[in-house]
């Protein structure tokens, strides 16, 4: 089921892009890395409706949590969590806001990340059984004789292996560092000012902003570098997407902004 719905379509899309690039450039060198980048751009474009909806939902949540009615029920039921939750839910329903809407994009992306990783590893097919499995995954429109075996070289990397750039004999995980930095910048640039910096949602958001770069950086350090290429490309495309939507918060990169963000007295409403 997972193979049929996720892995095989991913493999075939990747292979179709790779095959197209082979025909255009006449060489297999660097082409699979390029195929992953193009695949990432296509994925982000397909996910755009979810991204836009997520943004809309976040804005609605922010407006809602800044409203007088919301603030009032916070004070009124501060000692009755159950009643507070009921009232909050009532407001969500009245305003047509989905409190879990912001998670949707991440929930959709997660199987893509896992699926892409599996597709990259399976497409690499560096031993006989995986190559045999790969041969069974192709759709009719893929010229299997042309694309197999895949050339996994991309710049200085082998996309099927964790990346290290050797400088004076030391293996530096440059891509893992790039993943961590680009994820950090992405989350900072896209962060919105929380209505209630002390509430649970804001705390989780702050923690995710800290843990996500570390987590993805660790993945990039440990797993096939093809996944790291996806992470970097995905982060850059997302930043670009938000920039085009005019939603980037450049001031979040300034050191003083952090204090401003979490201080209730400086909160914008």
């Amino acid at each position, binding site marked *: 089921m997972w193979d049929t719905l996720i892995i095989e379509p991913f493999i075939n899309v990747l292979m179709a892009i790779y095959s197209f690039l082979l025909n255009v450039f006449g060489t297999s060198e660097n082409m699979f890395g390029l195929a992953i980048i193009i695949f990432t751009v296509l994925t982000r474009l397909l996910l755009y409706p979810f991204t836009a909806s997520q943004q809309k939902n976040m804005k609605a949540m922010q407006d809602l949590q800044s409203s007088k009615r919301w603030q009032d029920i916070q004070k009124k039921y501060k000692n009755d969590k159950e009643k507070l939750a009921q009232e909050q839910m009532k407001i969500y329903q009245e305003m047509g806001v989905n409190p879990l809407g912001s998670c949707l994009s991440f929930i959709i992306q997660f199987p893509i990340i*896992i699926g892409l*990783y*599996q597709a990259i*590893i399976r497409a*690499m097919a*560096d*031993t*006989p*059984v*995986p*190559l*045999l*499995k790969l*041969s069974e995954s192709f759709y009719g429109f893929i010229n*299997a*004789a*042309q694309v*197999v*075996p895949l*050339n996994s070289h991309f710049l200085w990397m082998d996309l*099927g292996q964790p990346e290290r750039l050797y400088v004076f004999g030391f293996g530096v995980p440059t891509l893992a560092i790039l993943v961590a930095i680009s994820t950090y910048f992405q989350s900072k640039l896209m962060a919105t000012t929380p209505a209630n910096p002390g509430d*649970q949602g804001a*705390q*989780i958001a702050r*923690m*995710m902003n800290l*843990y996500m770069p570390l*987590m993805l950086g*660790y*993945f990039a350090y*440990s*797993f*096939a570098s093809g*996944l790291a290429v996806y992470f970097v490309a995905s982060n850059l495309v997302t930043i670009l997407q938000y920039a085009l939507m005019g939603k980037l918060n450049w001031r979040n990169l300034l050191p003083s902004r952090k204090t401003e963000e979490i201080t209730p007295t400086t909160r914008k409403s």
Partner: protein
Amino acid sequence: MKPKRFLILAILILSTIVLSGCSTFSANSWPGITFDPSSNRVFVAYNTGVFAVDANSGTQVWRYPAEPDQNKTFFASPALTVDGKLIVGGYDNILRALDAGSGNEVWTFAGASNRYIGSAAVVNEMIFAPNADERLYALDLDGQPIWERPFAAGQALWAKPAIKENNGVLYLTSLDKSVYAAEAETGNQLWKKTLPGVSVGTPILDEGGNLYLGTFANQVIVLEPTQGNELWKVETNGWVWSSPIIVGDTLYFGDLEGFFYAVNRTTGNIEWQIQPDGHVIGAPLFLEDQIFFGTESGTIYAVDLRGNIMWNRTAGGSIYSQPVSNGELVIVALHEADNLLVAYDLNGNQQWSFAPANQ
């Protein structure tokens, strides 16, 4: 620890486990099997062990290493030397020479930087070991390199080279969709022929030195030996993983669409084809006017030379390797099955099975 932090940490650990689990299947292959007529033993390399098994009884004589070590895995067919060594390539990038009688390690060669997927070829006192690092290593019987530098192909080498002893030329296929000819003494390249698709099998040579190759371009191609020029080819329904065998004027081979063919090697015409119950990956075996081959579905077939199925037996798992025989029994190696080896007599009666005690 606060519940929220615990939750995030749990997500981190879970994600790592999920991604880690995704990568385990990549180091995977099927058993490599060899029969030694002088000792009447079968040598089989699979996963964490190389096993010597008595061909009459199916009992284990020795295993290497004595205890399984997950860092030492073996899949390439062991190769025997004239001085009683067994050459075994590992997925740990090490080529080992074992004493064929005892299984004791005699020497190791650590000059390669990737896995040994294909079997080594041994001719007289020379060992030719193909490696996935795109190099072919030539060693003497003491494990010392013979050539100034290894032969370099364009991509990984998965197949045992074929060697024409009388003119000292070796032929090898590479994942770069090429077949190479090189001097066995020096490793100097003589010619290179680009193929329409990858060939991962060992080329088969006929009495005139012509090469027969299966390819992923749904073809079996025949090349002449001096320049690699194509003589003729036959189209198949699917990828041809292993090279054909030659019996008289006929080639026998299977493909990944699940067909098994007999092709006239003078005309290139298909004489007959049958469709067994699964993909045919391993080369067939000819014995006593019968052709034996296995399928991915784990069935061993015996067919006569006219394509009539004499018998078939479900052995379990998948059969990806060429069967071997001691003349009385046909022995097949199984991938992902309860047994590693199963032996049948020529009428299809199972005689013994072998499962390693601690794999």
